[in-house]
């Protein structure tokens, strides 16, 4: 295992840790809005770290650009769906 693989493994493990943290938050936090915090923020960081690890392994500018694009689309999906769920939950209670 060379240096490049080592960096990728560290990034992958860190990314998986944040996905796990997001899921733990989803299960442990008490209400819909707090749970959304765990999902959006921890998964955003998890996806970023996993994409960074794959970019390091690929060592190719085009694949890195595509991974960055995937991350941005993932962010967009996360933030829009979190806002819609949060709004629905709030208006439903009023």
């Amino acid at each position, binding site marked *: 295992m060379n240096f490049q693989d080592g960096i990728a493994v560290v990034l992958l493990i860190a990314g998986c840790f944040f996905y796990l943290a997001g899921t*733990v938050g989803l299960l442990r936090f008490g209400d819909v809005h707090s749970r*959304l915090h765990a999902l959006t*923020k921890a998964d955003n*960081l998890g996806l970023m770290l996993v994409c960074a690890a794959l970019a390091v392994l690929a060592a190719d500018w085009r694949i890195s650009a595509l991974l960055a694009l995937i991350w941005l689309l993932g*962010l*967009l999906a996360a*933030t829009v769906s979190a*806002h819609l769920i*949060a709004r629905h939950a709030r208006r439903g209670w009023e």
Partner: protein
Amino acid sequence: MAGSDVGKQSISNRQRMVWIGQTFVVLALVWLALNGLDGWWFGLLAASVGAVVGGLLASGQPHPWRPHRLAGFALFFLVESFKGGIDVAWRAFRPDLPINPEFHRCRLDLPEGQPRTLMVSVISLLPGTLSADLSDDGRELIIHTLMPEAMDSVWRLDARIRHLFSLPAAEAADE
């Protein structure tokens, strides 16, 4: 009156042209990432059509961003993403679950369109804040926070977005 209206119109058209140009560059870069230089002429055509149609259909006043300030905004966003992810992970794993959720109302002074959309979207990815609802006129945002001090980052984000789009500084931010 008529003179100032005409002046405003031409500024607006110029902004729309800049916005179309920026959309074209972004679309062309996405094409380049997806396909490389194979069939580049078709990529340029598709990016041009996409940018022009998008620019003409964009509702309201387009707000072009400053390309040289995008890097600063991206860095701010990366740092805040790390802080947000680490913060929420720490709270999820702590046995005593240190969260204190509450709702805040805040007035949005950013202009309609890209600045406001960016603000509402990015708030959910900052540490401890989630945009929970937007009033129907778009002037008031309900923010859900995990801890009371999280609201500070909302004002920092507001200042960053004003900088990115070259908008005047907020007067209401220090209220």
